[in-house]
């Protein structure tokens, strides 16, 4: 049979294929960092046989559409995660006692008995603003 004919043979069942199933490469999650000192942010997944290959794919794939300075690839099997369903991470009880917001209004009101507004504003200027 000529090559042009061979190229036209259709297969309708797995058993007709002349090669066995090969399995997939392993997924690697990719994290990129846009500037030094900033957090690495998840940007996608590549399939690769090892970390070196994953990194090289990741560089081509995710490192080109934006300037980035650093990259991590992590085999997905090494990542351990919570479940969206049924697993509670944030406590359901009020834990305001362990946050600034549990005190801020009360403390301000108490200070006002001792100091005038302007003095107090200046003093509270040095407070750390909680950003959780």
């Amino acid at each position, binding site marked *: 049979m000529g090559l042009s004919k061979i190229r036209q043979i259709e297969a309708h069942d797995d058993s007709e294929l002349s090669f066995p199933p090969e399995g997939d490469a392993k997924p690697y999650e990719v994290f990129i960092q846009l500037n030094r000192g900033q957090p690495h942010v998840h940007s996608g997944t590549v399939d690769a046989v090892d970390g070196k290959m994953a990194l090289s794919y990741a560089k081509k794939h995710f490192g080109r559409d934006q300037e980035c300075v650093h990259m991590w690839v992590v085999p997905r099997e090494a990542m351990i995660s919570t479940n969206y369903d049924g697993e509670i991470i944030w406590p359901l009880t009020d834990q305001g006692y*362990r946050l600034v917001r549990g005190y801020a209004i009360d403390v301000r009101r108490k200070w006002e008995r001792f*100091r005038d507004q302007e003095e107090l504003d200046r003093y509270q200027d040095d407070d750390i603003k909680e950003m959780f």
Partner: protein
Amino acid sequence: MSAGVTTAVELKMDWEIQEDPQRTADFQARIDAKGLIEVDDWMPHNYRVGMLRMCEHHANSEIVGALPEGEWITRAPSLLRKLALIAKVQDEVGHGQMLYHVCQDLGKPRDQMLRDLCTGKTKYHNVFNYPAPTWADVAMIQWLVDGAAILNQKSLAEGSYGPYVRTMKRINMEEAFHFKSGEDMVLTLMSGTPRQKKMAQEAFDRWWAPCLMFFGPPDSDSTKTGPFMTWRIKTKTNDTLRQTYVDRFAPAAKALGLIIHVAHKDKDGMVAIKPDGNPDMVVDEQIQFDEESGHWGFTQPDWDEFFRVIKGNGPCNKQRVALRRFSHEQGHWVRQAVMGSAGLPPSAN
């Protein structure tokens, strides 16, 4: 020590080392441009050692600092205060965990750090060698000591070592709660009965001087300041931080009705009592706002006392290290069980 346990090569400052001039120049250029150094970056040996030392001292301070306050948990005056104090102590131990991690990446195993703390080979912050005999001390610690820590850590968060800087930012978020709850406790006491006010004043007299010492010896006596500032391991000098602290806290204390004294301490860290039965202290007349400089004056703390306490002869040094050692020993079987070295399978959780 059993086989298979890794001990790091002793990391020591060495000013004889000739570092690669090009790398050193590039390193300094990045620091001068306010850039960050990361764990895998090249860094001069003494930068690594200096950073490790400071971070280890900081980590030690977090977990030793939890001891005097932790002892008050069972005696907290209300459920809210108890919850807050438990949370605060838990935060501090967590700060220690994060900081030990930064140190591990710089080359010293955690196990060795915890052992060195128990044997007194490494130190923690001097301020935690003072006693906390009343509930008002807990309040003053959270307002004055956490307030000092925030000021210091804000300046350290402008430093050059990325992992430490990011840890500082995260820690400061939690310190903000400690400080607010400390203010709340001090304000409550100073709005209270004459007995509560008296208790607050007495605690204030115990903590004011140790807080001035918190920022370290005067710049003229501080050997570290030079290279540490150039490398931005530190970003502000001891004296600068101390002045900023006084500018913030002296007027606040005055407004609350607290009197700032220059007090003489006995060996237990309590204000000494004169033969006539009165406390051995005088009002600090230097506490005045100077229009010209724009700063508040203050009397320097007793620096001889500072060096005496740092050498291990403070009121609570032995007690604190012994309690840390006791806790570490008590935790031995737990660590063994978790790590699986007691012949048990490692924990599944």
